[in-house]
């Protein structure tokens, strides 16, 4: 293999004319982080709601929850991305569709919504499992005290369920982070997309993707560290 290694490429100006290749990657990184965080907010809140629906006594509520999960978990993420980006604006009432298509950064908003809804289905399953692993008597104890169903979830079931599912939730968070790269297919200039254009412009394929890999690994490492710190902080004294 005859390859010209050049690690200083990062400090050379990119053909875009707004900075170095390093700046280009950093801008990709900030889109990646913004997309991951915003979609996680949706995923976490919507996922918790759907997960709770699946544990309510009401059959109707359970059915709504199950339908959501099966729908969003079983369609490939890439297909969902295309559906949100190309199909949804077409089927919306005329003016809304046009507004959506002309929205600046529309690929960012689309990616946030798409990932949020997709990851919500996975968060929902974790939340449901977490609630179901709690002793049945916990719900009864809350109810017997006079707490409403909502209060029983808010003050008794969910605080315990989240503690149980923190490790799997962390890996869902990381999956969501990695899945942001799928958004390059709808034109979001996130980290992977930026690494690819760097490789195209400079032909330094190894440097470009090594950088992307190291950055993804770095974020994962930070997330895992924060999560385990959080786990110790919220651990209940005297448990296990």
């Amino acid at each position: 293999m005859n390859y010209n290694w050049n690690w200083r490429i990062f400090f050379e100006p990119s053909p875009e004319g707004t900075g170095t290749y390093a700046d280009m990657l950093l801008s990709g990184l900030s889109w990646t982080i913004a997309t991951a965080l915003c979609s996680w907010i949706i995923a976490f809140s919507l996922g918790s709601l759907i997960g709770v629906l699946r544990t309510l006594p009401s059959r109707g509520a359970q059915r709504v929850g199950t339908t959501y999960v099966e729908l969003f978990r079983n369609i490939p993420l890439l297909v969902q991305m295309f559906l949100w980006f190309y199909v949804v604006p077409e089927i919306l009432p005329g003016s809304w569709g046009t507004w959506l298509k002309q929205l600046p950064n529309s690929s960012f908003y689309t990616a946030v919504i798409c990932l949020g809804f997709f990851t919500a289905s996975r968060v929902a399953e974790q939340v449901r499992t977490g609630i179901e692993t709690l002793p049945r008597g916990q719900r009864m104890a809350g109810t017997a005290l006079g707490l409403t169903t909502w209060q029983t979830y808010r003050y008794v079931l969910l605080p315990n369920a989240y503690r149980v599912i923190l490790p799997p939730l962390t890996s869902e968070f990381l999956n969501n982070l990695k899945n942001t790269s799928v958004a390059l297919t709808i034109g979001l200039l996130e980290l992977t997309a930026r690494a690819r254009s760097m490789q195209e412009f400079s032909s330094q394929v190894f440097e470009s993707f090594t950088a992307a890999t190291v950055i993804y690994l770095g974020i994962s490492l930070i997330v895992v560290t924060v999560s385990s710190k959080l786990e110790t902080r919220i651990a209940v004294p005297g448990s296990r």
Partner: protein
Amino acid sequence: MSAIDPQASAKPMIAIDNISKWYGPVQVLNGCTTQVTKGEVVVVCGPSGSGKSTLIKTVNALEPIQKGAITVDGIGVQAKGTNLPKLRARVGMVFQHFELFPHLSIIDNLMLGQCKVLGRAKDDAHDRGLKLLGRVGLSAHSHKYPGQLSGGQQQRVAIARALSMNPIVMLFDEPTSALDPEMVGEVLDVMIELAREGMTMMVVTHEMGFARKVANRVVFMDRGEIVEDATKDDFFDKPRSERAQTFLSKILAH
């Protein structure tokens, strides 16, 4: 403050009127009728699977029924307009496995219902909680967590938690049967004191010593039916049904 109704003392605190319950096709309660009047202690006993837990849980509607009616302090438990959380707040319940909230400290366990259901101010709830902990002999443990206490201590906290709501009646479902033998006494002592103070109590238990000491009546269940509903002395001295006799001879044998 309304004037005391002269009939109030005669009215039952809990009236269970001919109730039946099914789990799917399986009938677990069959035409049960009994009452608990104010200040009375009623012990419910019977073989495993006879429906004791189910019966006691129907009183605060933790278990729905398909037939019959229950009233608590005159309020229909199954009646359409009944505010169940409000009704449940006035009925204390103690479970076999304590069911303290593991993520809350002991004092927070005692404050949750007071603050969120009764709307008491934090300071007030805290003070009342500490007083109740003193009453069950656990003042020193207010900042510990349930997982740091023994079973007997947890059950005493659970009783204090139920009392924090100032209930008009207390339900107990085998409160000592998950405890190591050496801890049974400390929990029974709290319950006996409560009974002596005049609390209305419905207690599922096999602790016949407790029944002899403080019960007014004993309800004996078998296969979903109330087979015997007698005063304490009648139940122990001359049980009418054969099933109650067999049960008593078995349980008093050890």
